């Protein structure tokens, strides 16, 4: 038996050892546990938004409460779509093989990118809503701006702009990482 045949045969036996370095899986499991906490917090927040949206329907109806309720309900629907479609598969992930870990991180990245997109769109939505409120004060003579509108605008506009900048950057980095992970996964398949 020549050297190549000898080592090929041993190589097959050697590569049957499929375990991962202990720190790799432990680290992924730790990250998954943290993500689960975030997941439940997100669900609680979403339920709170639904409660507020319903509350706005109960209070004396106005164009503002109607628009707020509609916006919140749209946010709740998007939230639950995201939770079920993107987040749940990650929190329930069980395949910790090397290929599974790579797929896990791809799924995680997909969820992060979607979340960043959602945050950018939500921030834009909030800016539109603020503009709508101020538009009413200019175009509807019966509608008067109150202290609440000033405070709301002073908080929502800077926060929205910061979020758009922050999550916009995250989207750019996410796109780069997506290409990198895709190349690694392709390399692994080869």
């Amino acid at each position, binding site marked *: 038996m020549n*050297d190549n045949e*000898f*080592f090929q045969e*041993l*190589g097959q*036996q*050697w*590569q*049957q*050892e*499929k*375990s*991962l*370095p*202990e*720190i*790799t899986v432990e680290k992924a499991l730790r990250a998954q546990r943290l993500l689960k906490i975030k997941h439940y917090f997100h669900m609680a927040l979403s339920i709170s938004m639904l409660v507020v949206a319903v509350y706005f329907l109960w209070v004396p109806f106005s164009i503002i409460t109607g628009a707020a309720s509609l916006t919140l309900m749209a946010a709740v629907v998007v939230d639950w779509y995201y939770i079920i479609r993107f987040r749940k598969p990650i929190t329930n992930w069980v395949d910790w*093989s*090397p290929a599974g*870990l*790579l797929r896990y*991180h791809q799924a995680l990245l997909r969820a992060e990118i979607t979340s960043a997109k959602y945050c950018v769109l939500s921030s834009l939505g909030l800016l539109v809503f603020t503009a709508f409120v101020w538009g009413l004060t200019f175009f509807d003579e019966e509608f008067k701006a109150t202290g609440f509108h000033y405070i709301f605008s002073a908080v929502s506009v800077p926060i929205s702009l910061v979020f758009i900048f922050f999550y916009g950057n995250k989207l750019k*980095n996410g796109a*780069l*990482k997506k290409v*990198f*992970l895709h190349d*690694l996964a392709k*390399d*692994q398949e080869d």
Partner: protein
Amino acid sequence: MVGNKKNIEAAEALWWQYAESLNRMMLSYEADRQLREDLSQNVFLALLSSVERVMAADNPKAYVFRIAHNVATDHIARESRYQWHELDEAMEDEGLTPEQSTESEQQKSKLLDAVRGLNLSLRQVVTLLLEDFSQDDIAEILQISPGNVRVRINRAKQLLQQVLK
């Protein structure tokens, strides 16, 4: 910067991809579970500090293994307690006795035991050869001549045949 988020993510991605092969390599270098975790951490940190060079390399896998082998060699130099009879200890760590393990597990252990018994220069070549690296890649990773790789392979084969027969 070495520790920026982008580098950490890139190093982690490389680590996940080669984790299985790197673990086999580390098993051949270190039998003690605790020390192997230290070795894993050190390999990861070394990977992190060189991640930009790894990503720019023509053969990233070979570069990763060069880093891992350098760290492992350094680890052996520091850990004089490295002995290949520690295999028994490693199996106890994982809650297995020789009787409990299956035949294929015993074969894998026997091979691992045999590889651990080789001296460092031979073990380096063998662990890479068993991971399907070509002789040219091995020469590049270990920074030795292809002729030297062939000599080591031949010597390792003779020793392994004796131990495994």
